């Protein structure tokens, strides 16, 4: 276990360094770009002297490097993300947590649907290699992948909400409501093709392996061969990687889908925050997503160690 613990520790030590680089880049780029929260928040009032007084109050008139130093001190010593310039009376975790929560719940649905359809479709296509079913299945999903979200969402709304009145046209009423259906479809349909093709490719790579032939020779039925032998051997490691990395997508949200359907998730909120030059909120979201990404990477690697005997042996962990 020493090896594994050391490995985890080494990986985790890189997290603060990653966060430092990412936070500096984000901090610098947002503040360096045109416009600032004071100016944009003031709308049609263009009183530059008043702007300067407010900027001074928030320390926005200091050099960016100095502002970054202050920010770093605040966040390291007090865990304080600083003020939001738009929602001035709420702490940043208060503001973004509900948005992430909305996107995450939506993301879980889309995630499950993507893999639930994608993996069997890919395995099926691989098994049917050579017949018309293989390209047929894959091209159906490629077709959906090539429809831009900007087109897909309005069409879904038009058909299922405006014409058929089966589903609400937008909004978010919680996980067990009909309002989840359109966004779930819109979010998962385009990504099914990727998962299906990957599943197909890895399955194909395994189909002709000796152990598969052995399994067939043993007289096992095809379903068992595919599910037990092929799927386990080829799919699990690859899918662990894909699944692990797409987990980050859960909290990133989806800008277009959320905006078009009026879902108060983090994707839409990032865009609003950028437009409102809400520097600290943008930075906080970037930091959360970065952390999630680093951790997801680590988890994937750990999962692979557990799953794949070769990696396990190589590390001497057991």
């Amino acid at each position, binding site marked *: 276990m020493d090896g594994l613990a050391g490995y985890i520790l080494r990986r985790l030590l890189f997290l603060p360094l990653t966060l430092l680089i990412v936070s500096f880049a984000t901090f610098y780029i947002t503040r360096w770009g*045109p*416009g*600032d929260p004071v*100016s*944009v*928040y*003031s*709308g*049609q*009032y*263009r*009183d530059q002297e*008043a*702007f300067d*007084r407010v900027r001074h*109050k*928030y320390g926005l008139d200091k050099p960016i490097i100095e502002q970054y130093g202050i920010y770093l001190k605040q966040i390291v010593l007090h865990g304080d993300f600083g003020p939001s310039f*738009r929602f*001035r*009376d*709420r*702490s940043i*975790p*208060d503001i*973004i*947590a*509900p*948005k*992430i*929560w*909305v996107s*995450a719940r939506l993301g879980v649905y889309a995630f499950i649907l993507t893999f639930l359809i994608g993996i069997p479709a890919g395995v099926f296509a691989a098994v049917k290699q050579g017949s018309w079913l293989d390209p047929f299945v894959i091209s159906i999903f490629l077709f959906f992948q090539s429809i831009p979200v900007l087109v897909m969402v309005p069409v879904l709304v038009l058909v299922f*909400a405006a014409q058929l009145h089966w589903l*609400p*046209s937008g*909004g*978010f009423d919680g996980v067990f409501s009909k*309002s989840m259906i359109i966004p779930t479809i819109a979010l998962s349909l385009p990504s099914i093709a990727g998962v299906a093709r990957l599943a197909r490719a890895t399955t194909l790579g395994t189909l002709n392996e000796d152990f598969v032939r052995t399994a067939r020779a043993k007289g096992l039925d095809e379903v068992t061969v595919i599910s*037990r*032998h092929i799927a*386990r051997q080829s799919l*699990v490691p690859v*899918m*662990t990687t894909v*699944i*692990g990395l797409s*987990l980050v997508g*859960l*909290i990133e949200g989806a800008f277009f889908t959320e905006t078009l*359907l*009026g*879902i*108060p998730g983090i994707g839409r909120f990032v865009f609003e925050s950028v437009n409102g*030059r809400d520097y600290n909120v943008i930075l906080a979201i970037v930091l*959360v997503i970065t952390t*999630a990404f680093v951790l997801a990477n680590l988890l994937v690697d750990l*999962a*692979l160690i*557990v*799953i794949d005997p070769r990696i396990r042996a190589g590390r001497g962990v057991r």
Partner: protein
Amino acid sequence: MSSKLTLGIAGVAAALIIALAVIILVVAKGGDSKKSTDAPASGSDTPSASATKASADFGGKAASGELRLRGEDPLFLDPAVAQDAGSALYIVEIFSGLVHLDKDLKIQPDLAESWDVSPDGKTYTFHLNKKATFHDGRPVTTADIKYSFERALNQDTASVTAENFLGDIVGARDVSRGRATEISGLKVVDDLTVAFTLDAAKPYFLYKLSYPTAFVVDQRQIKSNPKNWTLKPTGTGPYKLKQWKLGEKLTLEAYDNNVLGAPKLKTINYDLTGGSTLVSYEDGDIDVTGVGLDDLDRIQDRSDKLNKEYTQTPRQSVDYIGFNTNAPPFDDPLVRQAFAMAVDRKKIAEVVLKGAIPVATGILAPGVPGYTADDKTYAFDAQKAKNLLAQSKYAGKMPEITLAESGAGATVGPTTEAIVQFWKDNLGVTVKIQQAESATFFTDIDNGKYQMFHLGWIMDYPDPEDVLDVLFYSKSKQNSTRYTNPGIDAKLEAARIDPNTEARLATYQDVEKQLIKDAVWIPMFFDTTHALVKPYVKNYAFPPVVIERFRDVEVTR
């Protein structure tokens, strides 16, 4: 074999669970700190008998006296600071000031029951209404007025508008510039009497006092909870903020002891989750909705079942093309005039805007004193426009021209496209369109970076000073066209302090005509609210400026 498979699946499951746990942890952390910040705010709230009653009502789905609307989250409910229209909608219900504007935009008593103006027009003495109270029952005194005004101006409050709306009071600017903490021109005479001395006799001073910057806030609450008091503010307005869950819902509840009497409408529930309001309206989930241009054709069709519920109201706002009068080629008035005459606005209104929005007849919108219905703008005349351009100093050597507008850069609005097409067809000038998102757009206008820009102006209060003086006085901070005309300046200065209303408005009308003649702007359209209101909702009004509007609404559902 199968044990390894189980192990593999367990591994994937573990990875999933751990990753989800991380997410939930982040979310839960936010949730926790939310509770802790909420606590002091809700602690300061004293639930009254009516609160319990209303919450009982709220449980029933179709309780009468409840209005259901779709809304956006307010950003920040501090009347001294918020200047976005989204927050103002709620602020005007929760807070109030010495005076307010009624539906006809006339000044009416509010916290002050009366006031005297000195003969020289420079001193206003307000007498507070004894019945004026905060939502916790505490009477409003002149000390609260003094505190609220001085707080608004104080630099720590970080208000961009305070100087604009309170700066006419002698000494107010000393507070906003950090030279003093008290307004020297504000005298507290006794608990119910307060006097303001102005730097000049300004007839629009009362209008400025009707604006949220001059609203009263509760100093006790702010002092005890300086950071989060706005989450559950103790105001003086007709409605209390009962509940606000970010991105979910916001509930306003009648404050029955309001100085102007108990509101008829008891509860207003805002759904903040977003989505198509028209569909929600048709489904009967909300009682009022705005209507976009795309749905207007259908709604305006008399055979549509929604047509009877349709209403349209002018807003005091004007959409315009502004010229940077310093930037070539628009430093030549002839070029500006040519551009103004080359656009057939009536055709755009008919074809592009489907007749939904009226063509502007001038700079002053309907309802603003001094507005007249007769068209003061340049009529469409392609030939004359061409001739004017030929006479200008840029004839034959037109520089590149770009029209800037606010937008995401994906698609250009059909109105802007039509305008640019008219210039191309009638003047032979190709104008490029540059879209910038609003932060960049406003900053670049401030810096005079654009040759011309497509923008709107929303009146803050119904006085011509709020657009003509603010935007066209040469030394105004908001003179985005950089227009300088000593004759106009002199007239604006005179009108500012002219006690004779008629003469004053005549001066403004004169200025308006001159500005249009000089083609500093091409006034394009006056804005209009298109909306649907359910038949069981009575007295629902769409005031042309942001003012309190729910008090008299009746819902008989």
